[in-house]
């Protein structure tokens, strides 16, 4: 006690002096405490990316006595320039929740029993091998997340695809940004945004498409608002299905009916063409026109299969297609006035304005997610507002390494670190780098995420290893998948940091290192790779997810492919992985450079980061000698797609008369397994709720805090009402945050998905309400 008290006094002494310095020297910074030789260290500071969303804020983690005790924004990180949001500032507290999992557990006679981690890893390897031998290679699977570090995802892919020979590798990012990927691939032939956050410092108009940035990407949102304050010619338009804090801060809020963003985007294109706002030089030189299949289904049935087929069309055919989307016709479908549609079209069409569009889950968690991504690109391509500072269609990501680990490493069933399993030369490249026979890598993808959990339910998959995610809260139509995981003959391994509904269904729980308890890298929304060191030791027997996989791989006899030691494995893995991306289109920084800097954007060529792709002023991969080079497609053009409006998989009717929309709140991260252990965040929003329109609430006879039963064709949940809270849905819609495992709203949602991306739609299903 004496020592702790004294240390506290010394910390107070230092804080007083730092505060005094702040009064005397405005702007004074003590950010580099850790660099001082002989600093006996009241607090030492080391850089890391924030653990939470996909923004990729740089933080400095303060450590005292081997414990992370403080966080501040990293002034050297261009993403956030020293600023954090409330989750970032309190993030280190997530390391020290009272119920942290520190030992392995194994189910014995129905009870979870603590065992040494070595014994648990032996059992995982034994069960994996036994299942594969008995039921075939595709009976085993691994399911990770966009919170996997890059090395986590890389070794998972190498073990399962390269060594075990199954493509049963998926990640929760399938449910988070797969439509963004297929949007990029179909429009540009190459994944990830062409722009960067610097676009915010140049754009005159920001349009948020179904994207509550104020709560989901607050640091970026504040940068946008700071630009509006600093510059006189900046306008923010919020285009959404419910009023949020983003709507409140915007210059104009425009509400549309769920799913009709497809029609509105087409109407904007119609107006651009009608008013001759098309940038013909750009279109003639850099764009080609295409159409795909229509009436493509919703994937609600098992074994659903769909393959799109692109057909070339000409501009006149595209123009004819848009005749169905006059602003007046679309007003009737969408509820957006023709005047507002024309207003948005005029902003995109005005050649004197630079326009950036932002979106995230609203467009991606959509049964036509690929299409709506295509359609927003169409708008930017028609007016040539792309790949230049301030002109950016920008898909934000939700998780810290959805881009870095899932999209770039390729931890999806069809993907490899470079390319796809279907292409022979991509398999050959992987086999050579992985030192495995090329025949090991199966050319046929297996299960995307929803189908993977259906396969577990059916019994086609019998062994699943789940790392860094909580699917027993997040899977849509949840009850089916939880019941499936609990069936006889299934073996579920869960690596996690706290008990969750997913550890509840586990046969083995492996204690995982969390965030800065391990070395690793994340990749953020703007192609930025961010390294972090092991800053504090993991508790008990917890170990990194990467090392857990390596331990199992070694037990399965793959020492040759996993030869590393715990002293140097992250650096070695990184240098092996970045071979996949060699070349000007995706060159990654070396391990040494990543360690030194607060993030590096790829392509990183000759020591230079690439801010805007497809533009030869910035992008070294451009070789065609023109103003732009859309080198992802074989025709060297960006593709405009004729994609129609099609209704949602399930819409309100006379029996289920409300839309259900789900999402997040600023205080909590995903399922709350970390943020609900941070007292200040938990106390701010201690439980979930259902947002109701005040008039609907009055009709139902409920007031704030009264319980409401939400019923769908799949399940029901009863939870407190929130009326006139931070968000207000329009009449006929309710909104529920999904962070609270006490209210499993995904027992109510529908497992329909975009047939192209296979990303589920968490924003639209039909429910009815009862006063409980």
């Amino acid at each position, binding site marked *: 006690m004496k020592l702790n008290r004294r240390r506290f006094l010394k910390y107070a002494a230092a804080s007083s*002096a730092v505060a005094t310095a702040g009064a005397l020297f405005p702007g004074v910074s003590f950010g580099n405490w850790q660099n001082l030789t002989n600093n006996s260290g009241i607090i030492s500071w080391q850089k890391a990316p924030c653990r939470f969303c996909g923004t990729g804020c740089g933080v400095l983690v303060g450590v005292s006595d081997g414990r992370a005790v403080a966080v501040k924004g990293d002034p050297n990180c261009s993403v956030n320039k020293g600023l954090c949001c409330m989750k970032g500032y309190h993030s280190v507290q997530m390391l020290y929740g009272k119920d942290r999992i520190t030992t392995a557990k194994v189910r014995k006679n129905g009870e979870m029993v603590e065992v040494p981690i070595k014994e648990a890893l032996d059992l995982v390897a034994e069960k994996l091998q036994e299942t594969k031998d008995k039921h075939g290679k595709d009976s085993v699977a691994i399911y990770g997340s966009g919170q996997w570090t890059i090395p986590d995802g890389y070794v998972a892919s190498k073990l399962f695809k390269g060594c075990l020979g199954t493509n049963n590798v998926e990640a929760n990012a399938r449910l988070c940004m797969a439509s963004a990927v297929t949007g990029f691939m179909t429009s540009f032939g190459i994944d990830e945004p062409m722009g960067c956050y610097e676009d915010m410092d140049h754009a005159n108009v920001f349009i948020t498409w179904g994207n509550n940035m104020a709560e989901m990407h607050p640091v970026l949102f504040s940068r946008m608002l700071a630009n509006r304050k600093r510059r006189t010619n900046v306008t923010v338009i919020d285009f959404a299905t419910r009023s949020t804090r983003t709507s409140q801060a915007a210059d104009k809020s425009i509400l549309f009916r769920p799913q009709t963003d497809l029609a509105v985007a087409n109407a904007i294109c119609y107006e651009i063409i009608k008013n001759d706002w098309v940038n013909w030089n750009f279109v003639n030189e850099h764009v080609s026109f295409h159409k795909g299949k229509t009436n493509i289904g919703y994937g609600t049935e098992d074994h659903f299969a769909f393959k799109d087929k692109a057909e070339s069309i000409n501009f006149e055919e595209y123009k004819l297609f848009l005749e169905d989307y006059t602003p007046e016709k679309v007003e009737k479908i969408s509820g957006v006035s023709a005047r507002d549609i024309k207003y948005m079209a005029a902003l995109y069409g005005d050649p004197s304005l630079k326009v950036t569009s932002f979106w995230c889950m609203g467009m991606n968690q959509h049964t036509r997610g690929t299409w709506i991504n295509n359609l927003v690109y169409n708008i930017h391509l028609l007016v040539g507002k792309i790949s230049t500072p301030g002109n950016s269609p920008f898909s934000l990501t939700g998780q810290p390494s959805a881009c870095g680990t899932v999209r770039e490493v390729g931890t999806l069933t069809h993907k490899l670190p470079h390319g796809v399993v279907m292409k022979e030369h991509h398999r050959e490249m992987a086999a050579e780098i992985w030192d495995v026979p090329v025949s090991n890598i199966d050319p046929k993808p297996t299960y995307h995420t929803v189908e993977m959990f259906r396969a577990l339910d059916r019994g086609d998959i019998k062994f699943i290893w789940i790392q860094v995610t909580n699917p027993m809260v997040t899977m849509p139509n949840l009850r089916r998948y939880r019941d499936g995981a609990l069936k006889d003959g299934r073996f579920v391994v869960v690596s996690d940091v706290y008990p969750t509904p997913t550890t509840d269904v586990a046969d083995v729980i492996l204690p995982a290192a969390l965030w800065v308890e391990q070395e690793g890298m994340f990749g953020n929304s703007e192609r930025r790779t961010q390294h972090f060191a092991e800053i504090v030791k993991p508790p008990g027997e917890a170990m990194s997810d990467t090392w857990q996989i390596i331990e199992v791989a070694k037990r399965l006899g793959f020492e040759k492919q996993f030869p590393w030691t715990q002293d140097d494995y992250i650096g070695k893995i990184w240098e092996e992985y970045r071979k996949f991306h060699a070349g000007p289109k995706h060159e990654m920084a070396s391990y040494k450079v990543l360690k030194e800097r607060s993030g590096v954007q790829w392509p990183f060529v000759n020591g230079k980061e690439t801010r805007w792709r497809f533009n030869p002023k910035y992008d070294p991969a451009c070789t065609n000698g023109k103003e732009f080079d859309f080198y992802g497609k074989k025709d060297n053009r960006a593709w405009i797609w004729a994609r129609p409006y099609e209704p949602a998989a399930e819409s309100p009717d006379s029996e289920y008369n409300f839309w259900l929309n789900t999402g997040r709140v600023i205080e909590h991260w995903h399922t709350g397994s970390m943020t609900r252990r941070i007292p200040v965040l938990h106390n701010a929003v201690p439980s979930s709720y259902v947002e109701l329109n005040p008039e609907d609430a009055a009709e139902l006879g409920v007031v704030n805090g009264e319980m409401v039963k939400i019923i769908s064709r799949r399940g029901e949940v009863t939870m407190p009402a929130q009326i006139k809270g931070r968000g207000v849905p329009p009449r006929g819609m309710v909104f529920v945050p999904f962070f609270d495992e006490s209210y499993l709203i995904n027992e109510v949602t529908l497992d329909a998905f975009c047939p192209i991306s296979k990303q589920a739609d968490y924003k639209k299903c039909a429910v009815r309400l009862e006063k409980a």
Partner: protein
Amino acid sequence: MPIFSYLAMPKSGAKEVLCADLAALSNCEVIPSDNQEVVVLVTDTPDETTEDKLQKSLNNLQSLQSLSLAFGYDDQEKQ
């Protein structure tokens, strides 16, 4: 067992030397600013004799322009 914190101002251009001089002294912890010519010094001495010796050492530092007290605490005074 006093604990003090100070703002230490180096002589012109001598911040790095001052940091090294202070870090070399026992019972001192040093936090330099990374953008201004100022250093935070925290001292923690076990008794009055050691504190007196430290004060003399600080007074003799050639790299030090001035010391401004920001925080002080002494167990003995409390008793």
